[in-house]
């Protein structure tokens, strides 16, 4: 058998194997019924790793000129990356604080439909002199830490609602209550929101 024969036979065998695959006829309907809310540890890790790899791709594609491009009315692409670094660290800190059973000694006012503008500005300012490489490194380290937590936290911590420092109106009694698993997915959603816009702006694939 030469290599072409091997290739042909592999193709035929693979096609036959795919045809014979025993699939779950109810899975699509069950997934729709659950609205995609059947969250497991592999789902969390895969979603986090997906954004971690997307950041690595963006990092490789960004030069100084692209990083200086205005991405919002006030923020450059570099500012957005730094903003995501600040949130990566904050998400990681919040998850670790809940996991340790410790209390939050601060609040983040997250005005509905506007966001945590004061917190965002403060954190961006704290990182004013941070290099782009360091911002990407901060994202990578924090995301990797959250990936580890997605695999290691006990079920009762990962999948039970916890009280977080975010509050819609600055009042501690109105703090967000959400599952850490959902907080991890929220990080992914937030990262992708900005990553998609940066890619569109810079015409990256």
């Amino acid at each position, binding site marked *: 058998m030469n290599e072409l024969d091997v*290739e042909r036979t592999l193709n035929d065998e693979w096609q036959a194997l795919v045809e014979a695959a*025993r699939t779950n006829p109810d899975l699509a309907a069950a997934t729709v019924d659950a609205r995609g809310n059947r969250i497991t540890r592999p789902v969390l*890790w895969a979603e986090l790793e997906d954004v971690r790899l997307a950041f690595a791709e963006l990092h490789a594609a960004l030069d100084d000129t692209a990083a200086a491009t205005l991405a919002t009315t006030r923020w450059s692409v570099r500012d957005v990356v730094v903003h995501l670094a600040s949130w990566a660290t904050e998400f990681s800190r919040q998850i670790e604080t809940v996991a340790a059973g410790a209390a939050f000694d601060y609040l983040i006012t997250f005005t509905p439909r506007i966001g945590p503008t004061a917190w965002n500005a403060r954190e961006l300012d704290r990182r004013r002199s941070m290099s782009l490489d360091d911002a990407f490194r901060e994202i990578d380290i924090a995301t990797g830490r959250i990936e580890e937590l997605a695999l290691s936290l006990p079920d009762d911590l990962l999948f039970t609602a916890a009280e977080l420092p975010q509050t819609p109106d600055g009042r501690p009694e109105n703090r967000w209550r959400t599952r850490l698993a959902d907080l991890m997915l929220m990080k992914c959603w937030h990262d992708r929101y900005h990553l998609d816009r940066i890619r569109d702006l810079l015409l990256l694939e």
Partner: protein
Amino acid sequence: MTVPLASEHPILQARASGEVSADVSFEQLYDLYKRPVYAWLSLRLTSTDADDLAQDVWTIFYRRWQAWRFPAELVPEAKPVLSFLYRTCHLTLAAFRRLQERDRAGDLEQAGEVAAPIGSWQRDLEVRQCLTAAKEACSPDELAILIAKLTGVSARTIARALGVTESAVDHGYRRAIAKTRAVLSNPGAPS
């Protein structure tokens, strides 16, 4: 050489134009790709684990499909959903492997793995000599490249999923074919 799957293009077009809902088109895409997804996973896992991870893959896709970003022009040959599913299979498999390693490390007193019962699908694989030889001879990445190429996933998508260059994908594919041939020519020899 690739497995001739029906095209995802008409489903994407119908969804992009609003002719069908996200849920209906999700079910159509599930019907189109449920077999390759299951085959990708079950080549590397027991059938029970493949079932569980298939659920994870489709859950991730369902969530993403709700806000899918369609390009201005849909290219008929493009397979963005197949690419997405391949990448997601790769990532969920990596997560599963990490969980397994953690479980093993945290359960030292366990006297080794309990062999999973061989299901009909696994028996089906055993009679397919070339694929069985490939499974035996190839590294995990070579096997991932091989089955992706056989399913029609682009080299670019494979490269991005595995974090390697397109040239490395091509080399990995050729290496997988050569190793498979070597095992078939000389069964039992070290690969």
